[in-house]
């Protein structure tokens, strides 16, 4: 039971390669860190793993099968900028419940206040909105979570709260995680192993 990237590569419109021949495997319940310079292709790799973009070569498999094209996607991606990840015309409650209805336990663990539900996204701070986005992506059907600089924009206390909850859920549900960050200390603290994207692609 694992999420596998087999020999994947991504070519840019100018025909140069962003990265090539990447093999990556994340087992159930494993937390893998990914660090690398800006523009090296970490976010593109995440998008490919989540099935939002197709690789130029290679393939992504989940438990031996190709990624599903329809239905709830077992690999969920949490963006760095939550304000882009929510429809500005929807109230926060509708955004949170788009894919599933998070239970009180999860909402409490992420310190989500019920009074936010009737507000517009523009009335919430980035940190509050990011917690909504994380709760939205943590459905029981999520087998793998890709955290692309998930807590970079948050203060240290909120970061700690969110990682504590995410790690607890990952452990309880045997959910695999790919943590993309510039913060080496964070990666070494929360991950089982850390991959350097630069060393990998060169």
């Amino acid at each position, binding site marked *: 039971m694992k999420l596998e990237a087999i020999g994947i590569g991504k070519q840019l419109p100018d025909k140069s390669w962003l990265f090539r021949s990447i093999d990556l495997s994340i087992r159930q319940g494993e937390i893998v860190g990914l660090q690398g310079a800006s523009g090296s292709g970490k976010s593109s790799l995440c998008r490919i793993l989540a099935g939002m973009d197709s690789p130029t070569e290679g393939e992504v498999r989940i438990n031996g099968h190709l990624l599903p094209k329809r*239905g709830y996607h077992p690999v969920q991606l949490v963006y760095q900028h939550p304000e882009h990840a929510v429809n500005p015309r929807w109230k926060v409650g509708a955004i949170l419940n788009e894919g599933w209805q998070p239970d009180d336990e999860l909402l409490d663990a992420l310190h989500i206040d019920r009074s936010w539900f009737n507000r517009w996204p523009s009335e919430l701070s980035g940190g509050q909105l990011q917690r909504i986005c994380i709760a939205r992506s943590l459905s029981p059907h999520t087998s793998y979570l890709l955290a692309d600089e998930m807590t970079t924009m948050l203060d240290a206390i909120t970061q700690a709260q969110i990682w504590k909850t995410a790690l607890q859920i990952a452990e309880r549900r045997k959910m695999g995680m790919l943590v993309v960050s510039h913060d080496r200390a964070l990666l070494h603290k929360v991950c089982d192993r850390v991959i350097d994207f630069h060393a990998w692609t060169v």
Partner: protein
Amino acid sequence: MKRSYLLTIISASVLLVVPLLLAALLSSKGLLSQLDARNLSPSWNHLFGTDWLGRDMLTRTMKGLALSIGVGTAASISSAIIACILGLIAATLGKTADRIITWLIDCFLSVPHLVLLILIAFAAGGGMKGVILALALTHWPSLARLLRAEILAMKVAPYVIISKQLGKSSWWIATRHMLPHLLPQFIVGALLMFPHAILHEAALTFLGMGLSPHQPAIGIILSESMKYISAGMWWLAVFPGLCLFIVVRAFDMLARSLYSIIDPSRARQ
């Protein structure tokens, strides 16, 4: 803030309904010549005065405005439908369709409106049919371009992609995410076409390529009044011109206030 926009919308709507109501209420008798009441300046009996044939200018102006609003409505709706279809095709049917439609939009936008209007109205044989056809065929490009750009931007918007990840179907995404965003833009775009269409109808008619002279159109009234202005009959041009200006401004204000209310960046207010 929202209240002041609502107030503007209500007053603009009233300004647009008044000529329609007056046109329906005023008897067509005012359109007949009364040779004993020629060239009368504005008075209580004839608020906008009378012309060189003794026709009541208030009746002519209101009937003319109602006709202009009717022509503007027909032309704007047809134009908006053309824009919607072409914008959708360009954004969804692949690169070749997009290139052809973008090229068509550029072609239409590169020629001055009035030149195209005259050509199409002339080719269609003038009259009401010619005017509506010319207006409908020339006013769609900017709205089509806007809709195309909006749909293309929405297709790659992270929240739309996330919605797909959350298991939502394309139809669900189109109706819940895209339509609520596009519909206000479409309505406002179509509303902003009205003042253009009305002004261009008047301009076409003024130039003699539009509605036939027996119809009480604002363009005809203004065109005919030019001959009498030097004789001091200012009311023939001032009142119809002012009314046309008010109707056009009312449409403009209505569309802009509506946009301010439904613009997502102002959702907080």
